[in-house]
């Protein structure tokens, strides 16, 4: 965890959810900046610990290792499951928190190791939110299936931290967890926060431009560094849970501006899942967006 004095604000950074996280705060004292940074860090780590699929001591693991037995979940988990269920419906089943097991065959490491059709098809019976019995507060996950809240977790953490910190200070803040960000308002001089956009087609730190935000959130779906290339076909890492295969025609990345990080992230993900129609979908939604193909 580090805290640096910048021009007119403090920049605190830490690592959580496998991403660099930062909190920019327009406060006067280092002590105040540190207090806010601590709050954000504790909350981010709490959410990571509770919902990480890499841990064996949390509610997610309890659900995923329940062997078909009903598991009772706490309120916060229930809210997230409700949200995931809602997103599943809104995306007509394209966004599905049970599709994570496709990772077992799809490793987007830049190689040409495209899995066999049989290997992909063999996983499909274990995918589908409609196979899960979710009756709050009990979730019954058929044995062998898994859920993964990775598609929501980081955005949720940003929004939660923004809420927590906004209750503590009236100063302008910018919370940025690995490129998913939220600003609580314009800076004291009336200017927006300016955030550089990562260029997904470059491996270095080249910038694809800048986004200015006053109050609101920006989230990006897609990562051009994660792909497979075989026989001239580029397989992007966004998978269709109905087929188990990458969505045809999906852009390299989609960035959306919205009122909260969760909305921005979901709209970006939905757009990726639309493949060729990503831009059309975003235009229909009347949201500020940036698509890289």
């Amino acid at each position, binding site marked *: 965890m580090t805290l640096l004095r910048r021009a007119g604000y403090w920049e605190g950074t830490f690592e959580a959810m496998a991403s660099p996280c930062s909190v920019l705060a327009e406060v006067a004292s280092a002590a105040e900046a540190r207090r806010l940074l601590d709050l954000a860090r504790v909350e981010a780590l709490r959410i990571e610990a509770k919902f990480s699929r890499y841990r064996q*001591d949390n509610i997610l693991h*309890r659900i995923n290792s329940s*062997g078909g037995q009903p598991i009772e979940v706490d309120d916060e988990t229930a809210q997230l499951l409700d949200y995931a269920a*809602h997103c599943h419906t809104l995306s007509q089943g394209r966004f599905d928190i049970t599709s994570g097991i496709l990772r077992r065959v799809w490793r987007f490491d830049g190689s040409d190791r495209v899995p066999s059709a049989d290997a992909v098809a063999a996983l499909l019976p274990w995918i589908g939110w409609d196979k899960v019995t979710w009756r709050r507060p009990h979730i019954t996950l058929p*044995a062998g299936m898994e859920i993964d809240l990775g598609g929501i977790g980081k955005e949720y953490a940003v929004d939660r931290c923004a809420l927590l910190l906004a209750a503590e200070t009236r100063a302008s803040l910018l919370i940025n967890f690995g490129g998913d960000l939220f600003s609580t308002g314009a800076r004291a001089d009336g200017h927006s926060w300016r955030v550089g956009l990562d260029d997904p087609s470059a491996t270095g730190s080249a910038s694809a431009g800048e986004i200015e935000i006053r109050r609101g959130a920006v989230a990006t779906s897609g990562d051009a560094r994660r792909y497979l290339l075989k026989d001239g076909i580029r397989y992007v890492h966004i998978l269709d849970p109905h087929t188990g295969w990458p969505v045809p025609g999906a852009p390299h990345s989609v960035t959306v501006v919205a009122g909260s990080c969760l*909305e921005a992230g979901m*709209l970006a993900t939905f757009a990726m899942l639309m493949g060729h129609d990503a831009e059309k979908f975003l235009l229909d*939604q009347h949201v500020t967006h940036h698509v890289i193909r």
Partner: protein
Amino acid sequence: MQLNDKASIRRALAAATCTLLGSASQTSHAEGSDEKWRVDTSVLYYSEQDRVTVVEPVVFLRKTTGEDSFVNFRLIYDTMSGASANGATPTNKPQTFTSASGTSTYTTPAGKTPLHDFSDQRVAVAVEWDKPVDHLSRAIYGINASTENDYRSIGLSATRLRDFNDKLTTLTLGIAGSYDSVMPIGGAPIPMQLMSAAVPSPAGGEGDEGEGGKTKLVADAIVGITQVLTRRALTQFNYSIGYSSGYLTDPYKVVSVIDATGATLDYRFESRPDIRLRQSLYWKTAYHFDHDVMHFAYRYYWDDWGIHAHTADLHYRMELWKGAYLQPHLRYSTQTAANFYTYSLLNTSPVPTYASADYRLGDLTTTTYGLKLGIPVGRTSELNLRVESITQSGNGYPADAIGIQKNYDLFPTINTTVVQITYTGRF
């Protein structure tokens, strides 16, 4: 993805997000207190028709001590009263029985199955620590103790569970041991001694050998494997072995001594081996339908006393509406008698080393029909009611009954009703 009202996605997402974050912010202060306690309280009523009645309140507390770590605490208080068969067969005359010390007697009318009145209270406590060892293993350690007027027990247990194969396979290893003391009321009789020859002890309440009680040691081990077969099916296979040594005889049970006409002359106090080796194989499978869940289990049990038992058990959980469920239960069990089980002893035959007329060691068939109804109460609690009817039956008119014994039911069917109400709450 064809969307009719395209812009509605954004609005719907905004509303859902508002719900998620709005409620999350309201509950943010309670994060640290995510369901710390779980409480199960139940009352069980067990009644054998014309025989034993047990009322058993149970309090179970589970405290969450960390992510996925728990301490379980259980307290049981039983009040038992009624009468249990003492092993003697019915006959054409009233029968009077005397305790080993001669301090108490009871009489059974002619033609009735002799029952021994009793009442007792039992308090049992158990504490269990359940926690992850590493990312693939859990350990559960337990300690338990119970006490009754004439019985005390203290035990320890340890279980280790380990996941393999992407968590589709779980291996279970468990060991348990207990040390029990039996302090028979009226003293411990000398096995196979004639009741008429039992010497009354002036002190009363003391055992015939001047001892206050007898002891036994019980050790059990289990090895099991649970396998996820498909996303709907799960199967489990266990082997368990148990070894008991010490005082395994029931001090209140006798065997009738009859003559060639079947008339009862006297009684001998029963005698059982002081070692018992028990083994069982258990197979269980669960199948998850779209909403309902079915559990089927089969157990084969055998021991070195000659008992072989087959048990089949079926539960079907039907999801009703709003979290309520109905669960019918069927169980069928049949066992062969222990080698030394006998209805009675002929006075002209040599006295065997071991003999018991305890119906629980005889050829026995047990059938259970049950129904459980669970209803959610609020968001985090449940109330459930379980009712079961159990029938235990054997051969009441065996071919080898002698003389007037043929006139009586030597193995009366026992009908039992069990009613249990449980409330589960989380705080």
